[in-house]
């Protein structure tokens, strides 16, 4: 590809994202955690919809998902289903989390955990271990961004330079405007991704079949490669059990940036309205996946499955669309990495450094902004440039851990008797099982390692909670006035009763 258009279009997107991110500040002081961390709890339903949607649609949608379709087939749609279930999770839990934040001043997930169990140590532990998965995720997205710049520039922008360019761009507007920048840029990126995905998908279908209907593609797949249309897929590795347990584990992974997004809403009702329509955004996945299916018969000898859309676009699509694809893919990876970088910085400042160094809220607010720089340039950049082979493993373990924090949330929303030691014991047992069944004996019986972890985590959590002291009644009451405004039910009885 010799044209400069794809690179110019991609760089133009980067410039627009920077301007939008910088303007999001609109003259406000960003030195408080409330403002920089959760945008002063001010986001309306449309911005919040696009913030959550674009944040959840990563480079995976533009590269990984078509790659899965190319290699495995319809198994890839488990992603669309679990993303919709995450909307159900947001609909139920989001408004309550928002009320916790608004009434108790929480700006991070770990602050809420620390407050509910009256244990800064548990909050710090949650913040630190969630940071592992979050950083691994941000690194993967940064690698994707640098790869796009490398391809769009025809190799002129090496990976290391692409990493530095993308992180520098994010650093500037993230430092300046915090969560407001993430909200505004994600809104722009969210719209761009839908437009690009459908434009590229429809053009690819037209070039492959002569029409605009997806039917031509799937009729050919059905005739020549029907194994791509069912589970366990062409690779034979997506069993019903792996499909089901992957969805359940992903659904219960309450990642910290999502929590921060909920707390950025202007009201509890705003979250509910945004969550209601969130699944509609996932039509963005369909056209990109169809290009993956086209690759099955158009690019049968591809070395790397996740390059199928880029390869097909460069061979069959006009340069302007290739440039838009570059911009769209870069938008997907940037919109997913920046919330994770932001939330790691926010949580390390608020939940680890503030209690350890006994900092004031004002100093902590300034520290959170500054901390993004060492996180990006001393941790994310070197890891992205080095591309360690174990990164995906770190990510899997990190996400496996995320689901192991489930007991902390059960105790926050459903079960007042949950104790600090019960949560800690459940998390430790679940985490060890998840690590072991991710590394030593991967996913036994085709069941996701995180699911095995939960199966042991939950009984340990319940047993240890019942054997150890509960949190002070006044703290529990404070939380459950929000989590259970209409009182409680005793198992097996219909009557409800209030806590006090």
């Amino acid at each position, binding site marked *: 590809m010799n044209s400069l258009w794809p690179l110019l279009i991609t760089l133009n997107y980067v410039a627009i994202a920077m301007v939008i991110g910088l303007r999001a500040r609109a003259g406000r002081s960003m030195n408080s955690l409330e403002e920089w961390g959760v945008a002063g709890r001010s986001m309306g339903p449309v911005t919040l919809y696009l913030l959550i949607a674009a944040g959840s649609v990563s480079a995976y949608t533009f590269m990984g998902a078509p790659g899965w379709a190319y290699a495995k087939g319809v198994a890839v749609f488990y992603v669309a*289903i679990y993303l919709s279930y995450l909307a*159900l999770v947001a609909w139920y839990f989001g408004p309550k989390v928002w009320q916790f934040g608004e009434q108790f001043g929480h700006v991070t997930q770990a602050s809420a955990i620390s407050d509910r169990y009256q244990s800064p140590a548990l909050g710090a532990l949650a913040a630190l271990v969630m940071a592992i998965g979050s950083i691994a995720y941000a690194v993967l997205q940064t690698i994707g961004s640098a790869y796009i710049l490398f391809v769009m520039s025809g190799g002129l922008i090496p990976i290391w330079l692409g990493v530095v360019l993308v992180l520098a761009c994010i650093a500037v507007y993230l430092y300046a405007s915090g969560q407001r920048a993430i909200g505004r840029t994600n809104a722009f990126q969210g719209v761009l991704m839908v437009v690009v995905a459908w434009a590229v998908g429809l053009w690819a279908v037209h070039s492959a079949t002569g029409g605009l209907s997806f039917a031509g593609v799937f009729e050919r797949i059905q005739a020549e490669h029907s194994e791509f249309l069912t*589970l366990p897929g062409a690779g034979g590795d997506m069993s019903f059990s792996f499909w089901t347990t992957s969805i359940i584990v992903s659904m219960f992974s309450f990642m910290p940036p999502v929590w921060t997004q909920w707390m950025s809403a202007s009201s509890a009702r705003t979250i509910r309205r945004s969550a*209601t329509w969130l699944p509609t955004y996932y039509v963005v996945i369909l056209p990109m996946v169809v290009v993956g299916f086209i690759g099955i018969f158009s690019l049968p000898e591809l070395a790397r499955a996740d390059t199928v859309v880029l390869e097909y676009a460069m061979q069959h699509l006009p340069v302007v669309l290739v440039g838009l694809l570059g911009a769209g893919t870069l938008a997907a990876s940037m919109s997913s990495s920046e919330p994770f970088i932001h939330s790691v910085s926010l949580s390390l400042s608020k939940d680890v450094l503030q209690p350890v160094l006994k900092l004031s809220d004002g100093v902590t607010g300034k520290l959170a902004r500054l901390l993004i720089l060492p996180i990006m340039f001393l941790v994310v950049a070197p890891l992205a440039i080095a591309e360690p082979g174990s990164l995906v493993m770190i990510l899997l373990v990190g996400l496996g851990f995320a689901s192991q924090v489930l007991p902390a949330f059960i105790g926050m929303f459903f079960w007042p008797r949950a104790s600090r030691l019960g949560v800690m014991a459940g998390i430790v047992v679940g985490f060890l099982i998840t690590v072991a069944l991710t590394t030593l004996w991967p996913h036994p019986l085709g069941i996701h390692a995180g699911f095995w972890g939960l199966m042991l985590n939950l009984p340990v959590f319940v047993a240890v909670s019942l054997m150890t002291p509960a949190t002070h009644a006044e703290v529990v009451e404070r939380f459950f006035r929000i989590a259970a405004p209409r009182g409680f039910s005793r198992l097996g009885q219909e009557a409800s009763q209030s806590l006090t």
Partner: protein
Amino acid sequence: MGRLLVLPTSRAGWGLLIAFVALVLAGTWPVIGLVNRATLVMGLPLMVVWSYLVIFACVVVMLIGNRIVERDDHE
């Protein structure tokens, strides 16, 4: 309060909980096994059509949920 749990306290609440569980069951095994066939519906694989039916059913259930929550006037 040792064994107290947060559970729905109205018939509408229970209905909503049942609908949420039904949605999760619709996208997982064993239900997903019933649509695991290499047939096309409106030009799309049955699994894809079913996935998007589940996805849009989530929207419908949440819309109904919004009416219930706003009618009962509790956040």
